[in-house]
């Protein structure tokens, strides 16, 4: 019996005016545009400098900052108020104010304060800007010490040398971080949203009733709805792999078959969730809003943009029940770190749990008879 239902689903998908296009265009669009738009990579921060000292050292400091690639000098302001105007009109992101006695203090080995004022409306951006600027100033400081007072640096006073190393993403490339996670988003939107819409659509058209009055078993009907999305998901994720490779030069360190296995379980779980929603919704509009609501919650609490580790405990608990979060960890780990099944055992168990839960609920909440 399922053979006939599957045939029907595939024909309907292929004949739909935009579904087939969407299955191909959506992953392409997301992967080509999102990594550029959805980025916290902070480069080219606009810097406004108030140099009250006009000395060699103050100019050197400014020069060092600009040559760091993170900052771009927008203007040199004469006063703090003038610099603040640049911030108000969004021309500058951060102000560096160098005091009058800057050079003198350095030569006299006296501590001197420089003022950093960042536009913190976007607290994240403000924070990153000040961190970067402080780091650059710190490095400048060290250079000055070894230049001016070599006896201090080279003396047998205690010196701890820190050697920093970044693993898995050596060049601290933000896109490398985003691309695997965006594949999760593609799977979620395609395979969670479409099944929900497809069932509610049948309800509105009345064909659902025609099915309900026939002897089709619930599981058969739900499976016939799920299997096409499995295939759609596989196509989408394969497009994702290709784009990641061609456009970003990204190839998973781990094995493809591990990703496909996880994706298979995940699609099953997320489509099941879509079907549960469609069972409760009676109109398309309602279904769309319920799906939208949960997707938004899931995406925000998935660690896509902000790390789950930085969340308060209650939010971490909610995130633990978020299938997206688990697959996101999986994708990033396999792509960047080459993790294997054993290392991802917890995620595997969680995703299997969601798959069983949502599909169980889908079968239970689907009522052929009211």
């Amino acid at each position, binding site marked *: 019996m399922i053979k006939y239902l599957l045939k029907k689903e595939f024909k309907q998908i292929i004949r739909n005016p935009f579904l087939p296009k969407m299955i191909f265009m959506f992953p392409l669009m997301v992967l080509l545009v999102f990594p550029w738009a959805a980025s916290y990579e902070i480069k080219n921060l606009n810097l406004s400098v108030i140099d009250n000292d006009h000395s060699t050292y103050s100019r050197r400091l400014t020069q060092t900052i600009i040559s760091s690639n993170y900052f771009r000098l927008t203007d040199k302001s004469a006063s703090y108020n003038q610099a603040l105007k640049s911030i108000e009109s969004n021309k500058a992101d951060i102000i560096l104010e160098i005091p009058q006695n800057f050079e003198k203090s350095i030569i006299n080995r006296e501590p001197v304060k420089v003022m950093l004022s960042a536009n913190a*409306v976007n607290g994240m951006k403000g924070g990153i800007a000040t961190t970067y600027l402080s780091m650059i100033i710190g490095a400048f400081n060290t250079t000055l010490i070894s230049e001016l007072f070599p006896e201090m640096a080279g003396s047998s006073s205690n010196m701890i040398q820190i050697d*920093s190393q970044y693993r898995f*993403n050596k060049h601290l490339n933000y896109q490398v971080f985003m691309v695997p996670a965006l594949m999760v988003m593609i799977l979620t939107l395609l395979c969670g949203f479409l099944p929900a819409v497809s069932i509610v659509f049948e309800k509105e058209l009345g064909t659902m009733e025609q099915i309900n009055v026939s002897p089709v078993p619930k599981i058969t009907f739900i499976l016939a709805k799920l299997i096409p999305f499995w295939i759609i998901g596989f196509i989408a994720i394969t497009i994702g792999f290709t784009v990641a490779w061609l456009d970003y030069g990204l190839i998973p360190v781990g094995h493809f078959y591990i990703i496909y296995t996880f994706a298979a379980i995940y699609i099953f779980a997320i489509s099941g969730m879509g079907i549960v929603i469609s069972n409760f919704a009676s109109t*398309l509009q309602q279904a769309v809003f319920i799906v939208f609501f949960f997707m938004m919650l899931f995406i925000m609490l998935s660690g896509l943009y*902000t790390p789950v580790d930085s969340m308060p405990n209650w939010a971490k608990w909610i995130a633990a029940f978020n299938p997206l979060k688990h697959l996101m960890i999986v994708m990033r780990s396999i792509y960047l770190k080459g993790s*294997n099944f054993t290392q991802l055992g917890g995620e595997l168990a969680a995703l299997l749990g969601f798959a069983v839960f949502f599909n169980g609920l889908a079968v239970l909440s689907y009522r052929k008879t009211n």
Partner: protein
Amino acid sequence: MKQLWSFIRKEFHHIFRDRTTVMILLLMPVIQIILFGFALSTEVKDTKVVVIANTNDDATQRIIDRIDASEYFDVVIMAHNSGEINAAFRDGKAKLAMVFEDHFSENLKHTGTAHIQLIADATDPNAATSFMFYASNIINNFQQDISQPQSGSGMIQPEVKMLYNPQMISAFNFVPGVLGMIMILICAMMTSIAIVREKEMGTMEILLVSPMKPIYTILSKIAPYFVLSVINFITIMLLSVFVLKVPIVGSFVSLFAVSLLYIFVALSLGLLISTLTSSQLAAMMISGMGLMIPVMLLSGMIFPVENMPAFLRFISNFVPARWYIDAVKTIMIKGLSITAVLKDIGVLVLMGTVLVTISLKKFKVRLE
């Protein structure tokens, strides 16, 4: 006029009968505000650290203690060989590794230099940069403390001031963004789906052949969504002031006026979509793909527009939410007067006029 009133009442009943949707529309901003306000932050906290220190001496122990004591780090594993680092990273058990060279304390005392290797799991580059910075700072502070107090150490001291948002609360950035998104969602997406639904069901024709003027039909269709938007605006304002403690620094009147203008633009967008499409599914796709994603990505709601490539920056100019969010930030957070947002207002007025003109024209064409 009385006729219009009774039609508006009918539309209200229609929408409020669908409790689930109304609940979602009213709850969505509340939940978003709470999540954005309390759950989402990029602050690095309790980063898990794996330590390799084969010689457990005095200096090593003191540095480990300092790292562990800081709010940024939690030392979770004491490992013995470097192979364990990658394993810990792959399991997600740790994000930072600190490797002390053998005889660390002794080297420090006798040769004057000692080495620590900091290895970060840089999967998330921003987080990695931040916690690397914090860890280096802690080690540097330790070094300064054990060095004889010397003048000249740490000569240039940066003093940081965070303007407008001293505690760097992310809500300051998100409240305007949530406002911008909710209004588009309700006014553009819901309105277009509702009107197209009537078209699909054939009831729109009945309304259009009735003696009522078409403009009244449209007004009565959008009135409930207008009211919902205003309710949401007020909810978001109340939550942001009393729960998130994000104050309205500028004038509330200006803020409200700009919001009304934005609602008007969003409604005319919804109207336009509904005249362009004939199926609910298409209306949904257009508003979902064409509105929601651009609003979330290109409006500056979450991601700063300035960092995007020129092409995307160009497109962002056509996203109404971008101008609205900028105006809200300027008035509400920075506390500047309405004169500072004249450009935003101008763009929104222009967009609204163009949209309304096109959609009314289209609407008339369809009637004739």
